[in-house]
């Protein structure tokens, strides 16, 4: 292995590595591209073999996603065609022999997802922050045991605890409620949040607060003024991870909700249309559901990179 760097060789090496990375990226993104294209495919082309890469895009999937339709008989179709108050969606549907009966539950489900995932994330991060601070700065009796106990809540697969929780919730009237899901997601995210945030706070030297205490600040003021700003990247990283978990959560939502508090993940795959499984709609639904998470992660990306690696280095 030559030890002297030659300009040409170095450049080739970099190009090779870059090329390799691009290929790996493309491979990983294929399912996403496929989902994207499926969402815009007309029904007939979705299941064709060989898979169609080029096609005439159509909004069928999206329409199916957002609406409930019923099939029209010949006579009804003629009747419809003569109506004057048809929107372009109605005409669109009419071309396919169906009429729009009303909006689907998709928007509601996504709204529920936003509420439940959003609030539970905020709660998990705030409570986690104070808990982590306490464990980090104060001498808590049985600290090691308590921390392990907290971590252990994450060790059980969701499926295993669903039944006991189901029974509990039924008794307490929390079944299919927003509150019930928020509490559950917060509880599950708390362990992760405490552990991650404790790591970050441990890295912040306690001399800052001690200097503030000696100067006359109360512990709360020292926390707000000196600890909080420095833990922002840790908080950002924790927020993203907690949010992703809650947003994508499927098992609990499936089994502990039915209608009012149901979030999007269990409902998307179940989009049934008049002609069976509407793959385009499912793809459209999943695609749209991706967007908020991508936005949040992208907005916090600066903090994320620092956050993911920072907590890993222990003094």
């Amino acid at each position: 292995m030559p030890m002297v760097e030659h300009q040409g060789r170095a450049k080739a090496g970099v190009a090779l590595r870059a090329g390799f990375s691009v290929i790996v990226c493309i491979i990983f993104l294929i399912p996403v591209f496929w989902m994207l294209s499926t969402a815009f495919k007309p029904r007939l082309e979705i299941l064709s073999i060989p898979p169609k890469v080029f096609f005439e895009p159509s909004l069928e999937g999206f329409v199916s996603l957002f609406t409930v339709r019923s099939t029209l008989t010949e006579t009804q179709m003629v009747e419809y065609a003569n109506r004057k108050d048809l929107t372009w969606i109605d005409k669109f549907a009419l071309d396919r022999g169906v009429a729009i009966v009303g909006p689907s539950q998709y928007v509601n489900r996504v709204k529920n997802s936003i509420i439940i995932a959003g609030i539970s994330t905020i709660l998990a991060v705030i409570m986690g922050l104070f808990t982590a601070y306490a464990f980090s700065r104060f001498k808590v009796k049985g600290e090691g045991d308590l921390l392990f106990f907290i971590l252990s809540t994450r060790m059980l697969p969701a499926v295993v605890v669903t039944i006991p929780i189901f029974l509990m919730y039924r008794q307490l009237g929390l079944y299919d409620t927003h509150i019930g899901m928020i509490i559950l997601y917060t509880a599950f995210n708390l362990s992760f949040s405490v552990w991650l945030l404790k790591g970050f706070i441990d890295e912040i030297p306690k001399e800052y607060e001690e200097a503030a205490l000696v100067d006359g600040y109360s512990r709360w003021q020292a926390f707000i003024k000196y600890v909080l700003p420095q833990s922002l990247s840790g908080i950002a990283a924790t927020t993203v991870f907690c949010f992703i978990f809650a947003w994508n959560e499927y098992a609990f939502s499936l089994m502990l909700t039915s209608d009012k508090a149901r979030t999007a993940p269990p409902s998307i795959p179940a989009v049934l249309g008049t002609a069976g499984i509407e793959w385009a709609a499912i793809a459209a639904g999943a695609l749209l559901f991706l967007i908020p998470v991508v936005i949040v992660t992208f907005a916090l990306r600066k903090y994320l990179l620092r956050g993911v690696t920072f907590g890993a280095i222990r003094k």
Partner: protein
Amino acid sequence: MATIELVQVEKKFGDFHAVKPVNLTINDGEFVVLLGPSGCGKTTTLRMIAGLETITSGKILLNGEDITDKPARDRDVSFVFQFFALYPHMTAKGNIIFPLQTQGTSRSEIEQRLNEVVKMLDIQYLLHLRPGALSSGDQQRIALARALIRRPRAFLLDEPLGALDADFRETMRAEIKSLHLRTKATTLYVTHDQIEAMAMGDRIVVMSAAIVQQVGTPAEVYHDPNNMFVARFIGSPGMNLIPGTYSQGSVQLPGNNVCPVPETYRSTLDKYGYDKKVVVGFRPEAVIPSANGVLSSQVYSQDLHGSYTMINLSMNGEIIHGRVERSANYAINDIVRFDIRPDMIRFFDPETESAIKAEVRNV
């Protein structure tokens, strides 16, 4: 045994020039110290010799053989790290014999060499302990033993005393030097501590900002520094460097002080120029307080060192350190008159920071 030669060796990290072209010859059996402040390039230079760092351009020769393209494991040099780099899960003995085991040396040979280094470093009683149970000084001894047991052609040490407590450092310094005297091995030693460099080095390579400032024996870098950086860096405290103006035969210093210029420097300074700015350099021990002293300054503070006292004088704001008898007792703001020993006075050009050398007279 080995001679090491660096020919125009240079290192760049992207645009950052870590080591500007260095030419250096280390003779067989010599103890050479690379000395400089953090970031000067000394460790990078050492690591290039070890093969732990690639070279941007230039050649490294070991006994005349070009090893520039050889990977570290084929260079037959030993490297001792500042933070010991001992395997925590092995005993001291395990750590020491590890290099030989990976080379496939016979059991009997290993035992024999182990006894040799154990005797040299007096670590018999530590062999069965794990690094975690040892003091930092003992850990460093184990690291040294591990380096010695291979009988490499050269030893490269990277600030090995940096992580030790002050009292250990003194003892280990003498131990390493004694070790060198016994093994007569070519040794390259990196440190930022000029006391270590002076105490141990046959020659010192003073580096700053990627450039070699001076290569010389301890006496040379101490008494005849090439420039103001070396003058300041060597010695604790460093050389006093006072700005002044040269006029015929003397230098005007701050506060109406006039410093006479010794004969040996007259002609060089005359050539340098009248009314030109010049820096006068002299070490603390060159300050001789005297009632009839030619120069005067005010006492800024006084430091007791036990065997001597250091007075810190302010000559119109310029701080001068003077090393005097321990019995001396000055109060803040006292006026002190003093002379500078003429054989210890030096001059520098404030713009280039280079030393203005005295004329060498052919007798």
